[in-house]
């Protein structure tokens, strides 16, 4: 098939909508291992966009490229939990075997090996993506096999199934995961009781957003319903990018019906007729099974026109793929991305609930929120309020990874203590727990009695355990690099501040910093926190500020004992010369003789 034919084929179903640009680019990337210039020209003509606009979209998303990555695009997950499981030495080993350096395509066009942000396989890492497909449980043996498969040009669909096995690892079930109500039960309840009664139940349940922000779900739905509009939208945020979080992956694998049902209940309540699941690119393997479930629901009368025979109850769901951008988990960036653009967070107000997708009222909720809403529609508000705390009703799915014997998914009533969770996952000699991901909180043992709840430690679900053998500064460094990679670049404090912060963390980590640098980190962090445009920028300094306050010793032991150290590193400045001369011996470094 020529590139012209391919592009005509992929753009036909959505009728050449510029809003589908990202979806087209995603398809093209995985067919050609890049978006070729010819494809950009064709899309520009078909969609009436400028070529530079299309380049700008390609440049924004990590998984899109304007030059070929090769037959195999291997991305090793670079989350701190992957590091702890040995991902960095496996990366080195793979690069050595294939004769490549990270990020640079091999000259024969066979392969590129690179790193990527957390792929959401933290309980079964180290993990990687090959041409977008998730591979779990990497070890030396598996890396050897992968190198051989690549050298022998074995197509990825011929690789052993075992490589692509993703476990659910559900370790503890509560009211959500143990529910056995039938498909359609929530919709039948909606039809029996009426949408006003169901909305009242959602409100009375006290359900709050499970993505982490904790906004009242019933209130959000009511705002959307009350806003005058010719069209409303329901969007499920499955851009699960917070490092250490993988519970949405499990819900979409094992309970997708209930998630789609929650979206449909929301549509019935708000009057929306169109819905969208925004699925992070890392979960490419989930797309086909999810499409199949959507089709089954259409055939069962649970989706599409005249749902369960009710005239005027029309709603359908489309899956949109993300392409490697953490920022798109922020709801207004996600909407920009759904519209095919660079995922830059919008100004607020107005909020998406009144001016969202296509400028229409839009409910954006997390995967887990929709599932909980579906079950509240079935069992009622009282059933939900029976568990949890006064301000945080119901349960929370927690993704546990790091230094523990039983990583995986744990569903707990809100109010569970960190202590109890550590006991359940069999964590020993715990030094710290990082809760709510890279943008979250670093919790020392003295605070292990604190609870998971919106009024105490609030989390979207990430729970990473670090034992006494770990250098916590490795974690801080990993997160600092993560935020440089994931900052959208729109506002000054986040764009520049995250880079300055990373350089300072590196300076401490490499033993070149003094106390002055710690003060600088404090100042930059506070500035980012109070002046950034969106939540990414305001929370990006959290790991640094939290650990400076609660774990000062991890910095102290790396410091040079002077108040000021210059930022200029003479030895690092010689790297270009070493690269050119191909030398890396002791004599090519300064200060190694001492």
């Amino acid at each position, binding site marked *: 098939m020529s590139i012209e034919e391919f592009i005509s084929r992929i753009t036909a179903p959505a009728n050449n909508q510029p809003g589908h640009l990202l979806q087209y680019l995603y398809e093209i990337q995985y067919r050609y291992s890049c978006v070729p210039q010819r494809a950009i020209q064709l899309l520009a003509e078909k969609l009436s966009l400028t070529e530079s606009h299309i380049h700008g979209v390609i440049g924004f998303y990590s998984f899109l490229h304007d030059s070929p990555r090769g037959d195999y695009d291997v991305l090793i997950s670079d989350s701190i939990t992957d590091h702890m499981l040995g991902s960095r030495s496996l990366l080195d080993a793979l690069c050595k075997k294939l004769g490549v350096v990270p990020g640079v395509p091999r000259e024969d066009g066979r392969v590129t090996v690179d790193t990527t942000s957390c792929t959401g396989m933290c309980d079964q890492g180290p993990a990687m993506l090959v041409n977008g497909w998730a591979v779990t449980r990497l070890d030396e043996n598996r890396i050897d096999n992968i190198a051989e498969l690549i050298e022998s040009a074995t197509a990825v669909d011929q690789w052993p199934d075992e490589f692509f096995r993703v476990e659910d690892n559900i370790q503890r079930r509560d009211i959500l995961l143990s529910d056995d109500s039938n498909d359609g039960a929530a919709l039948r309840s909606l039809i029996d009781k009426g949408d006003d009664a169901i909305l009242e139940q959602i409100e009375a349940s006290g359900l709050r957003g499970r993505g982490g922000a904790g906004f009242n779900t019933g209130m959000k739905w009511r705002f959307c319903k009350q806003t005058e509009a010719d069209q409303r939208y329901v969007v499920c945020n499955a851009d699960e990018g917070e490092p250490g979080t993988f519970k949405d992956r499990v819900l979409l694998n094992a309970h997708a019906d209930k998630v789609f049902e929650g979206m449909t209940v929301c549509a019935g309540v708000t009057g929306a007729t169109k819905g969208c699941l925004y699925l992070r690119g890392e979960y490419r393997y989930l797309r086909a099974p999810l499409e199949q479930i959507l089709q089954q629901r259409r055939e069962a009368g649970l989706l599409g026109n005249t749902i369960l025979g009710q005239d005027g109850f029309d709603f359908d769901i489309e899956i949109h793929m993300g392409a490697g951008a953490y920022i798109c988990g922020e709801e207004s960036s996600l909407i920009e991305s759904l519209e095919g653009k*660079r995922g830059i967070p919008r100004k607020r107000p107005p909020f998406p609930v009144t001016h969202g997708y296509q400028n229409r009222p839009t409910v954006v909720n997390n995967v887990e929120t929709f599932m909980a809403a579906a079950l509240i529609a079935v069992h009622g508000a009282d059933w939900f309020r029976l568990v949890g705390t006064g301000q945080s009703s119901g349960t929370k799915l927690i993704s546990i990874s790091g230094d523990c014997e039983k990583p995986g998914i744990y569903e707990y009533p809100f109010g569970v203590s960190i202590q109890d969770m550590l006991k359940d996952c069999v964590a020993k000699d715990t030094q710290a727990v990082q809760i709510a991901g890279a943008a979250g909180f670093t919790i020392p043992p003295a605070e292990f009695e604190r609870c998971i709840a919106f009024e105490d430690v609030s989390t979207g679900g990430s729970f990473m355990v670090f034992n006494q053998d770990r250098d916590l500064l490795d974690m801080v460094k990993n997160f600092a690099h993560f935020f440089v990679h994931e900052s959208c670049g729109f506002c000054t404090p986040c764009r520049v501040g995250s880079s300055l912060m990373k350089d300072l963390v590196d300076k401490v980590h490499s033993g070149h910093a003094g106390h002055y640098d710690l003060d600088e980190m404090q100042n930059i962090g506070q500035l980012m926190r109070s*002046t950034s445009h969106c939540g990414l920028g305001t929370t990006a300094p959290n790991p640094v500020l939290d650990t400076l306050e609660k774990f000062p010793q991890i910095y102290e032991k790396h410091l040079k004992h002077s108040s000021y150290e210059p930022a200029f590193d003479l030895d690092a400045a010689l790297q270009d010369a070493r690269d050119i001369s191909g030398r890396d011996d002791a004599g090519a470094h300064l200060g190694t003789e001492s």
Partner: protein
Amino acid sequence: MSGSNTFKLDGRDIPFEDGDTIMDAALRAGEYIPHLCHNPEFSPHGSCRVCVVNANGRQISACTQPAMENMEVDNSSDEIMEQRRALLQMLFVEGNHVCPGCEKSGACQLQAVAYYANMLSPHFTHFFPQRSVDASHADIAIDFNRCILCELCVRASRDVDHKNVFAIDGRGINTHLVINSPSGKLGDSRFAASDKAAHVCPVGAILPKHTAYDRPIGERLYDRQPISIVGDVAAHEQDEDR
């Protein structure tokens, strides 16, 4: 529309109309809030964050925040001025801004706001990025070293000129301005010196050729009066004595 709505800016009552931002109302009342990406002719952007103020205890950008009745806005405390200074320093070290060698010196908003904010040094470690100069166009040169990503040229070319000559590419610290032409060069684009986009750059990134030193440094807009008095350089585009 009632004319009776007011909020307080550093203690002074500022009247505002429905739909006004803090910036709109303050500028109309003759109060200066420093800004770079904001230009009253365009819809608010909110990217430079230099217009940060404290409104009812929360730091927000004045150019995007709707004015609200009885809001208390701090536009001049030491804390706010310190934050603005740090944001300006970040912009200075991110690009290559060499005021003494820049032909926009004295008529540059970045420089003028830095003077206003008492910025005496760039403070942070310079990034020294490798960026290019594009002199391919007959009448206008672009020096990417000085771009601060305010997107005013992007907005002007898209919304006023309807040419879409400029776009933003990359992400994070690699975000950069690009030109929409087959070669990526300005000379190959549909850009013209009469375009609105040629007259909105607050810094020395988009420069008219052949007229650089018609007015000597030392006698320029901000050499004579501070930016808090004379306002944006774009508003003086037509002035003889600019």
